[in-house]
C-alpha cells in the first residue's frame, strides 16, 4: 500500500464521502439509512484494504445487519410523524449553527491535511495479522486480565 493511496482506495473514499453527505442531506429517513448502508459497505472495503477482513465482516454483520435494521424498525414505527419536523433548527441560536458547522468542517479538513504529512514508523506486517488467535490473546491478556 502506498502512502498516497491506490485508485481503488480513492474511489472508496469518494463513495464514503458522498454517502456520508447523503445521510445528512436526504430528507427522507429511509433514504438516509440506505445512504448510511452504502457508507458502511464502502468502509468495509477500506477495512479489507487495511488487511482486516474480520473487522470488515463484523462491520457488515453488526452495523448493517443489526443496528441499521433496528433503525429501519423505528422508522417504520414513526412513518406518520415526519410531517411535524422542522428541518431548520428552532430557537435563537439557529443562525449560528451553520457557520459553526462549516468552520468545524474546514478545521477538520485542515487537521487531516496536517496529520497526513506525519511520517510514522512502519512495522513489518503480514497477511496472518488478523488471525483470531491474536484477537483472543489481546482480549484476554491485555484488557480483561489487566483489570
Amino acid at each position: 500500500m502506498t502512502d498516497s493511496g491506490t485508485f481503488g482506495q480513492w474511489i472508496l473514499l469518494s463513495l464514503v464521502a458522498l454517502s456520508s453527505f447523503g445521510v445528512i442531506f436526504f430528507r427522507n429517513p429511509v433514504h438516509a439509512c440506505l445512504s448510511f448502508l452504502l457508507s458502511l459497505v464502502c468502509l468495509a472495503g477500506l477495512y479489507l484494504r487495511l488487511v482486516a477482513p474480520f473487522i470488515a465482516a463484523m462491520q457488515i454483520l453488526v452495523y448493517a445487519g443489526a443496528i441499521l435494521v433496528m433503525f429501519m424498525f423505528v422508522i417504520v414505527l414513526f412513518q406518520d410523524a415526519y410531517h411535524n419536523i422542522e428541518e431548520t433548527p428552532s430557537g435563537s441560536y439557529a443562525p449560528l449553527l451553520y457557520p459553526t458547522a462549516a468552520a468545524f468542517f474546514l478545521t477538520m479538513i485542515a487537521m487531516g491535511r496536517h496529520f497526513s504529512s506525519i511520517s510514522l514508523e512502519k512495522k513489518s506486517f503480514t497477511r496472518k495479522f488478523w488471525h483470531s488467535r491474536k484477537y483472543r490473546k489481546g482480549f484476554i491478556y491485555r484488557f480483561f486480565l489487566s483489570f
Partner: protein
Amino acid sequence: MNIFIIASMLMFAIGITGVLIKRNAIIFFLSLEMMLNSANLLFVGFAHRWGNEIGHIWVFFVLVVAAAEAAVGLAIIINMFKTKQVVDVDQYNTLKG
C-alpha cells in the same frame, strides 16, 4: 495511510455537522454512528500502520458501545414519541432546567 486519516476526518466532520444541523432524531443518531465509524477507521488504519492488533480490539469495544447506544437511544426516542408525538429533538425538553 494518509487516505485513511483523511477519510476518518471527513466522516467525523460530516457526522458532527449532522448532529449540529439536523432536528430529526433518527438522522441525529445516524450522524452519531457515523462519528463512531470514523473512530473505527482510524483505529484500524493505525493498527495496520504500527503492526499490532490493539486497534482492532478497540474496534470491537466501539462496536459494542455503538450497538448499546443505538438500542438505548432508539428506546428513548420511542418513549418520547409516545409522550409528545414528535421526533424533533428540539421538542424533547422535558429535563430542561
